[in-house]
């Protein structure tokens, strides 16, 4: 029997606060995208039938998110989900096949900037863009609201959809999520967890000693207009980049190499502008799914490690990586990953604005310098999707107009993808080209 309500995780609420901010200041929503670039053979009719069955079996895909009776922590209202419309799926036919490096069909870009409502359960929309009636391939975008999945969950979702398509699982049979607790150390007392949350808050407050000036500037009332650039390296260049990551940051922590690359790409733009970034303050999402389990699909299961780097440190690649390594170790040692879970969990009871207020309070109106993600190999078990070869796949992560810039890295089939999502007007054409060139040079050690 289904529970009538499923609570949001603390991280869900953290991200819900971004959605509330964007809705209030920028007239849009916090929508993430997962894009599958498929070869010929994707069967629209079969996919539609599959999604109908999945939407019937999984009410979270259309459940409203609201506080029960207007108070307490927000929940998915599962009990009333069956009367809600299923996620919409639309097919768009285009004659011209996309070129390498083209990232977003126009309709995908529109979805990224749409206004959605969590209160109405508008969790997911799916669009397929068929090239030459599918003969030249299909791009499929899942545009989802963050409490529904996180990045890893969205990859698990498409893998699971394909398992349902192949009859390996039933639509009502989800992978084992493992034991998901509110904290990585669930046996601590309430008081200890309260202390942990305060330590996390003090940690964030400490970053205020070097306030950031993000590319988008402090919070402002502009219509959200995000678009994305995609840099894809071929297998030979990807191999070079991966080897470079191993050499510079060790094979265990490639994310620090990619974070350094992302900082330096932004640093190049600031230098060209003659502008002062203040410092580079960047949150790194950390996956908290229990290890050794298949892992949860739905809801957000992450904490954050925050990194702060002074601009002069970004000039020297190896010194920058060493600095990031030291900060990562210190944050893990201080248990800030767990402290963040506790802080986010407690704050579910507070209004959404509390989160953003806390983040901005220490940074004079800014959230951070830019968003960053490194998600490793994209759905490595997913070779084909609903009958079509998966040629490439990547995330288009959302970013509020302030900070206005997000760089996300992942690999698929031996190719590295770097997706740069940016708010209109934040970067000029020449600055985007400079970022692309700096990224490529650092990834391939061609500087």
């Amino acid at each position, binding site marked *: 029997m289904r529970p009538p309500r499923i609570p949001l995780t603390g991280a869900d609420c953290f991200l819900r606060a971004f959605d509330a901010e964007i809705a209030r200041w920028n007239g849009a929503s916090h929508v993430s995208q997962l894009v599958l670039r498929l070869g010929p053979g994707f069967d629209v009719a079969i996919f539609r039938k599959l999604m109908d069955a999945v939407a019937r079996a999984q009410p979270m895909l259309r459940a409203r998110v609201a506080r029960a009776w207007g108070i307490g922590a927000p929940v998915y209202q599962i009990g009333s989900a069956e009367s809600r419309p299923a996620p919409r799926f639309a097919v768009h036919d285009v004659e011209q096949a996309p070129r390498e490096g083209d990232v977003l069909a126009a309709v995908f870009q529109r979805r990224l900037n749409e206004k959605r409502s969590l209160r109405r359960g508008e969790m997911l929309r799916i669009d397929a863009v068929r090239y030459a009636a599918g003969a030249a391939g299909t791009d499929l975008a899942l545009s989802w609201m963050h409490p529904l999945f996180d990045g890893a969950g969205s990859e698990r979702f498409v893998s699971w959809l394909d398992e349902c398509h192949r009859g390996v699982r039933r639509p009502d049979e989800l992978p084992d999520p*493992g*034991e998901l607790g509110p904290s990585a150390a669930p046996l601590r007392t309430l008081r200890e967890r309260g202390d942990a949350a305060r330590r996390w808050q003090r940690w964030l407050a400490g970053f205020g000693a070097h306030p950031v000036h993000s590319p988008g500037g402090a919070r402002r009332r502009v219509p959200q207009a995000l678009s994305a650039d995609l840099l894809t390296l071929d297998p030979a260049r990807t191999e070079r980049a991966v080897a470079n990551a191993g050499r510079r940051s*060790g*094979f*265990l*922590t490639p*994310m620090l190499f990619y974070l350094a690359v992302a900082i330096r790409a932004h640093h190049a733009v600031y230098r060209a502008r003659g502008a002062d970034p203040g410092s580079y303050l960047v949150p790194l999402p*950390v*996956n908290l799914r*229990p*290890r*050794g*389990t298949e892992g949860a699909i739905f809801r957000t299961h992450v904490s954050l490690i925050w990194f702060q780097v002074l601009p002069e440190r970004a000039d020297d690649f190896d010194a920058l990586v060493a600095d990031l390594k030291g900060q*990562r*170790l210190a944050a*893990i*040692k201080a248990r800030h*990953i767990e402290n963040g879970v506790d802080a986010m969990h407690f704050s579910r009871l507070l209004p959404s604005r509390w989160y953003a207020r806390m983040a901005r309070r220490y940074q004079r109106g800014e959230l951070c310098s830019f968003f960053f993600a490194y998600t490793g190999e994209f759905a490595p078990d997913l070779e084909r999707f609903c009958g079509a070869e998966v040629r490439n796949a990547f995330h288009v992560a959302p970013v509020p107009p302030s900070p206005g810039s997000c760089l996300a890295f992942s690999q698929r089939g031996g190719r590295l993808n770097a997706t740069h999502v940016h708010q209109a007007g934040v970067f000029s054409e020449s600055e985007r080209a400079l970022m692309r060139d700096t990224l490529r040079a650092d990834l391939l050690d061609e500087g």
Partner: protein
Amino acid sequence: MATPTREDLVQRVFRILRDEILTVDAGFTPRSNLVKAGLDSLAVTQLMLSIEEQTGVWVDESLLTPEHLATAESLGALVHAQLTAS
């Protein structure tokens, strides 16, 4: 304090992984594949911090290779080598 033996360190690494870091079933042994058991970079750092707490020896993560991370046994052997070298 006497230096722990190699077997002692293998058992310590095994117990930390089994009881504190990984979600494993009863079949998990010092020779089980750690990557299949969900070992990731955060788990390795947490393990190294626990080892440091217990032995006072910090194993630099940049020394680790995929071979070291194959099993609790190979990881314990590396910690033992570091401890005897320090």
